[in-house]
């Protein structure tokens, strides 16, 4: 493919996770350039010019996020969100595992632009191997003087702490992450105040995804304006997409934003196995509303996917082919979100549980088409009414599946009912022992 590779270029080089190999490729030069030749404002200007949008899920312009940090002389924080928990997403894992120093360099640049002197990497507990690799890299970077007091002779000092989460999806939500980092139960906070004003320990905090931060050294190397030329006008740059599901070559691919989705699914990932067809696909992780095979030509960028009533999210494409029942995908998904709901706000806590119960009945043939209406309405009652977006993350894909595959849901109910010996058209049950309370009647 002719896509420019930035993040994944040369990433498979053995030993890149060590500082010597990383530096032999110009590693930390951009951090040095920022700290010694640029002011925080000029770094920020480059980031703003690059048009970089957050790679974690929400797609908020990264430069703008940093520019919200007050200039006041208070303790400021930069937190790297490495709690990559969205099902289908595994880009940060590869990036951190293979090029941890690129992340550290990105954190130095981001923290410098934000004026933060304390930074944290919050990594999900399941990424034990990656955490060990970052730990080792952190030791190297500290010894080399890239982390600590007066980095590279500049006036800028930065501490960096790696924190391992305990395995909760909600801790990938930025305010839940902050609470967890502070040692509290990881529940999302009410916004406002936004983290830019009152984040970690009530101080101004900028929270960025791993991939976002790792892009920053490259933006300084190329120049913001040059970087902005890649991709589309509103979705600049490249994106690492994680393709999984029913494809022949699953894995991480770096693409230029704006190429057609078909090119990613069929061109890069090889499409579904021989003889099968794409039934539907999640364009941006399991929380994005599903798109069907009719949407394969939608350009893969933030705005085009939004226009198609879905989202780019974390850039995780999950492909489902025609051998997989939509009900089983919906049930699996709903169970995940029910399990991960923190329980703080009502619609998400109760709505996810209710949805799972209804889907279980659908799966067992114990539902009626009216239940599908209730299910769709429950999803609408969740969307937009919650404290954070976890509730929406279940409601949007489930809602889209019910809307787009209503026939299949109904057929599934009928088939399951027929196959269920107690419910189907087969002889009605006459064994009194199995009807509770009817024994001896």
């Amino acid at each position: 493919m002719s896509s420019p590779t930035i993040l994944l270029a040369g990433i498979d080089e053995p030993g890149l996770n060590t500082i010597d190999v990383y530096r032999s490729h110009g590693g930390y030069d951009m951090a040095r350039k920022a700290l010694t030749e640029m002011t925080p404002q000029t770094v920020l200007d480059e980031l703003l010019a690059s048009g970089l949008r957050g790679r974690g899920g929400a797609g908020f312009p990264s430069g703008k996020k940093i520019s919200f940090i007050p200039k006041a002389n208070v303790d400021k924080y930069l937190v790297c969100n490495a709690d990559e928990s969205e099902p289908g997403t595994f880009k940060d894992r590869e990036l951190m595992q293979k090029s941890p120093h690129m992340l550290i360099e990105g954190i130095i640049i981001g923290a410098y632009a934000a004026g933060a002197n304390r930074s944290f990497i919050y990594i999900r507990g399941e990424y034990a191997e990656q955490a060990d690799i970052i730990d080792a890299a952190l030791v190297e970077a500290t010894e080399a003087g890239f982390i600590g007091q007066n980095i590279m002779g500049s006036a800028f000092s930065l501490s960096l702490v790696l924190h391992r989460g305990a395995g909760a999806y909600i801790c990938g939500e930025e305010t839940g992450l902050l609470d967890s980092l502070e040692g509290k139960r990881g529940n999302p906070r009410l916004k406002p105040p936004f983290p830019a004003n009152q984040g970690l320990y009530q101080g101004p905090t900028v929270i960025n995804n791993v991939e976002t931060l790792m892009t920053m050294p490259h933006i300084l190397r190329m120049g913001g304006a040059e970087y902005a030329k890649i991709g589309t006008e509103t979705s600049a740059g490249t994106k690492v997409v994680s393709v999984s599901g029913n494809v022949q070559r699953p894995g991480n691919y770096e693409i230029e934003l704006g190429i057609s989705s078909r090119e990613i699914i069929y061109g890069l990932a090889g499409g579904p196995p021989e003889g099968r067809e794409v039934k539907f696909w999640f364009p941006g992780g399991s929380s994005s509303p599903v798109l069907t095979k009719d949407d394969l030509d939608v350009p893969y960028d933030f705005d085009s996917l939004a226009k198609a009533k879905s989202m780019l999210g974390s850039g995780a494409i999950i492909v489902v082919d025609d051998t997989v029942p939509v009900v089983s995908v919906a049930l699996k998904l709903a169970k995940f979100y029910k399990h991960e709901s923190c329980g703080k706000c009502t619609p998400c806590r109760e709505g996810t549980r209710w949805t799972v119960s209804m889907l279980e009945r659908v799966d067992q043939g114990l539902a009626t088409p009216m239940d599908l209406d209730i299910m769709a309405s429950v999803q609408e009652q969740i969307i937009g009414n919650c404290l954070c977006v976890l509730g929406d993350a279940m409601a949007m894909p489930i809602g889209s599946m019910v809307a787009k595959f209503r026939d299949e849901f109904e057929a599934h109910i009928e088939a399951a009912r027929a196959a269920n010996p107690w419910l189907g058209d087969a002889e009605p049950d006459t064994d009194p022992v199995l009807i509770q309370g009817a024994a001896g009647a």
Partner: protein
Amino acid sequence: MPRPNPETAAFSVDGLEVNAPAGMMLADAAKFGDVEIPVFCYEPKLGPPVGACRMCLVEIEGIPKLQTACSTPVKDGMVVFTQTDRVKQAQEAVLEFLLINHPLDCPVCDAGGECPLQDITFGWGPGRSRFIEPKRHFVKPLALSPLIAIDRERCILCYRCVRFSQEVAEDYQLILEERGADTFVSTFDGHPYVAPFSGNIIELCPVGALTSQPYRFRARPWDIEGSGSVCTLCPAQCNVEFTVRDERVLRVMARDHHGVDDGWLCDKGRFAYQSVHVDQRVSHPLVRVDGELVPVSWDRALDEAAAALSAAGSDSAAIAGGETTNEEGWLLQELVRGGLGSANVDSRFGGMLPRELHAALHAPALQATVPDLEFAHAVLVLDCEPVDDAPILDLRIRKGVRRNGVKLAVATSRPSSLDANAAAVARFAPGAAEAFCAALNAAVGGHGVVAELAAAAGAQAADVLALAQLLTGAGDARSAGGSQGRADIVIVYGERLTHGARGEHAARALLNVAGHVVSAGHDGSGLLELPAGTNGRGLREAGMLPNAGPGLAEIGPAGLDTGAIGAAAAAGALSALYLLHVDPLRDLPSRRTWRTALQRADSVIAHAEFLSEGLWEHATVVFPSESYAEKEGTITHPDGRVQRLRPAIARPDAVRAEWNVLADLSRRLGHDPGILSGPMASAKLFEAVPFYAGITLDELGGRGLRWPARPASAAWPAADGGPFGLESPQQAPTPNGSLRLGRFRSIWAAAEVELSPALKFLRAHQRAELSPADARRLGLAHGDRVTVGSNGSRVSATVALRSGVPEGTVFLEQGIAQDSASELDDDLVEVSPA
């Protein structure tokens, strides 16, 4: 600290133009336009909103998503809709979600009829549910503690109780376990939730998930009446509402008063109402016949008392306990001074303080109020333990520190529960308050050498200096903020500071400190005394002092103070003792002296609700007392707020109003106070005390009023407020192998606690609080039984190790029935294994 903003914002809600204080949350501000926005998790008393229940979603013009009204501060020009289809759908959605797990067992639920979930469902709910799956189930009800039952099925997970425990009481006991739909409220490891303020979560719960064990199934809302009064179990004087059914108090709830209690109650105030209806109540007048107390008619009891008192004449003395009302105190001193010609009246238990020092310490210009604790720049807690002495103020101090950044300094002998919140902590030897105040005075700019004085107090000079730095440095923060003058400093001190032979010197040193750090006459700063008894302040103002009359008026030669009364009676110099709501063996120091005194006095006339040891054995006449739920009259809060007690229930059996008993007795002694009703007694009191002049019961109403803020406060006697030249203070005793004895009275040391079935489990037992170092030296471990004492008097106790106790000191409880520290007279004691 900035107080709430008085500016208003004009906004529109459902088309109505409304004005409300700017910055107020929409959920509250809408009420100014008579628009109600339903809420569950929102409770401003718990701190910043959390937006968890999502019940209060409203539409705001210009914002695409629905917003939670509980967390949106109102702004000028805001246009809010609470009735649109979108809002309606969201409200119905949230209620449908909340009800899917709620058992709807309202007919058997204690909250039924007074349940916000019920009310809001009727008002805003969808009317029917589409949920047909099984609800979640828990074992229920479980005892969260002996006082509180938890029904987790009814819980709607609004988090109010958990937030109370973590952010208001700061006991950190309640937690949420599990996640998502499986979340439930619990305690760590399932330990019972036992804490001084646990009962508040019952009132906070918006459903019937947390219910009061003593109230469970006792009444339905339509069986009961609410009756507002004031709790007289401690000097905090919280405003309460008694729940009454058929002349029985079944429950006590908070009656939110920002100037007094901030809407919280301690567990003693919430559950000790049970003692009103126990069999141990004295129900009839009693007279001792052949060594036994027997019930008699009122006439006989009054005649016997009158005969004994007139026989004793000026060889009589009277002591009033803290629960005495102002009117009763005034009547008692009239009776003794006017009817018997004796000046021996007292309501303080720790010796006489010169009249002008009373006047200086409580001068209106130097008086801090309860809300000042919340907004001051710095608060000094001096020689008192708020959670024991006036529990609800403990919460107020925590609130100031947590929410308004108040700098807290703690200077006590015994480790305080506020230590963890304090920016500076100093410890001094028990009884060395005088030396400590002198050291602090030196450190804030007065005379003296800090190091020497600190050593005399058994304190670290560095701690004293750090404390002084905090009190004087708080002013810099203020001037940086642009305001003028000194910082707002509040000094909360215990009455015990002015007790004892050196009490007056300690008071002068305290006034010197105040002269350096408190701006007199400036609202928001000053002194706040925590009296030893509930109405300590009111009784002094009503004239229950040996050296001052009503209104702190000058009188002739001073009478005997409490300690001297005991000593004189023990020496056989007094023949009649009048004890109004006080049992010397339980409530007063020097128990051994008092045992002799009660034995030798010819007659001991007492008003009592319960017959405690001293009265049971020695009283010759006992008049039954009213409980606080039956009382009528006024009491005065430590910050000068005169509050009105109103009877919630009828007096049981033969119990009479005590103003009536005192007036009747006075009449029989030939000194008719001319009082025929409760309100007449109050009117006489307001006449007799110049700075209460013009107060009427109507004006007091349900909220009381602070007399220092009224014009009549000009009648407060003028006094020299210092600076005083200080004598060199008394040195704290050197332990030399033995231990210094510190005494304290716990929140649970009260007859009401011992007699309330629900609270009994909390009643205080003697325990010796030791430092781990001393325990090691003495070969003692936590939980060991020991005896503590000196010179032949000893009490038994259980060792309790506390890391904060200074080495060389042991603390014992007083105010308890058995093994009270008042049994020991010396300041140095030996601790030995039992």
